[in-house]
């Protein structure tokens, strides 16, 4: 079997305190994968710390938001011809030990998009707050209803993407709060979607892209985006 080229994408915004350790951890566990840190216009030393850790660093001139950063990663993966792109958060909330679990369904060509779910794992101590869990549950039901794909953790940003989807995502990827909408888009391209259990920790640095007061905006925006996507033509 031909060896597949794998890119680990880490979107990071002001993660200077933890990024180096994370990059070193990943490169020690998986020396054959390329690590790309997308520094999303950070005001701290994220870029230097990441490249000290041995990662490739792409620095955006201003803060695009998580979706814009991840899309940059997909563009990189597409341009350089990577077969699989794995996204893992820069705040060390996602445990790199589970990277291979998220990867393997895509690597074995059993899925085009594999999502790491904190709710499938008994060992994941971090389950988020009650309100957030309600929100996540809402998107599970909505996506299940619209796409017949039932996921427990559609907001998880710990995911592996196959070559076919990389190309589509490099062309269009939602700008803010992209995760649930990206799943909807993926089903439109006929992608096979899987979920695997992962362990998530409490974040060590940075802040969630979903802050307290923007939760309502988040819920409405993502719901609207998913509904709008159903109006787009199936590929």
């Amino acid at each position, binding site marked *: 079997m031909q060896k597949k080229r794998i890119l680990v994408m880490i979107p990071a915004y002001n993660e200077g305190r933890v990024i180096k350790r994370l990059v070193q951890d990943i490169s020690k566990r998986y020396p054959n994968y390329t690590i790309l840190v*997308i520094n999303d216009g950070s005001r701290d030393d994220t870029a230097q710390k990441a490249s000290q850790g041995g990662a490739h660093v*792409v620095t*955006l*001139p201003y803060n695009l938001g998580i979706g*814009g950063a991840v*899309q*940059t990663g997909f563009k990189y993966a597409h*341009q350089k011809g990577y077969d699989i792109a794995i996204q893992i958060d820069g705040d060390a909330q996602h445990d790199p030990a589970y990277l291979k679990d998220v990867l393997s369904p895509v690597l074995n060509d059993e899925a085009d998009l594999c999502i790491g779910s904190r709710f499938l794992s008994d060992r994941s101590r971090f389950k988020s707050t009650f309100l957030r869990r309600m929100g996540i549950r809402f998107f599970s039901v909505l996506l299940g209803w619209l796409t017949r794909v039932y996921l427990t953790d559609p907001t998880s940003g710990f995911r592996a993407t196959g070559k076919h989807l990389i190309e589509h995502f490099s062309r269009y990827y939602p700008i803010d709060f992209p995760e649930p909408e990206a799943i909807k888009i993926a089903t439109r391209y006929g992608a096979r979607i899987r979920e695997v259990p992962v362990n998530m920790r409490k974040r060590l640095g940075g802040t969630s892209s979903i802050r307290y007061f923007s939760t309502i905006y988040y819920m409405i925006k993502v719901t609207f985006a998913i509904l709008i996507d159903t109006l787009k033509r199936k590929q």
Partner: protein
Amino acid sequence: MQTKLFVIITSLLILLTVVELIRRQKMTFKYSMFWLGASFSGLVLSLNENILVTLSELTGFSLPSNFVFFLLLVAFIFLSLLLTLYVNEQNNRTETLAQTLALLEHEIRTIQSVQDTAHQSPKNPR
């Protein structure tokens, strides 16, 4: 009669300002079309008030002035929709530019570091 003159002058002023802005290349035709169209139709309507009266009767407005207000409202709603569209377009473009710039910068730095290491260990067995 005074009103008519006033409206004609105002429309002409707007029209000339827009033309002057295009001449000075402060506005492109694409973005001035709305203003050209609006001031031109204002001019036509003020020069020939029969058109306005006929149109307002046709659409069921009892007062032509109400019809004018209605037209203005519609025009401005349309304009702000257009402006929102333009802002979005610009937003998408700067975003694509930022991403392309970042990827190119990374590429340049990679090439540079390859060159630097090549310079540091010159293999010139002569």
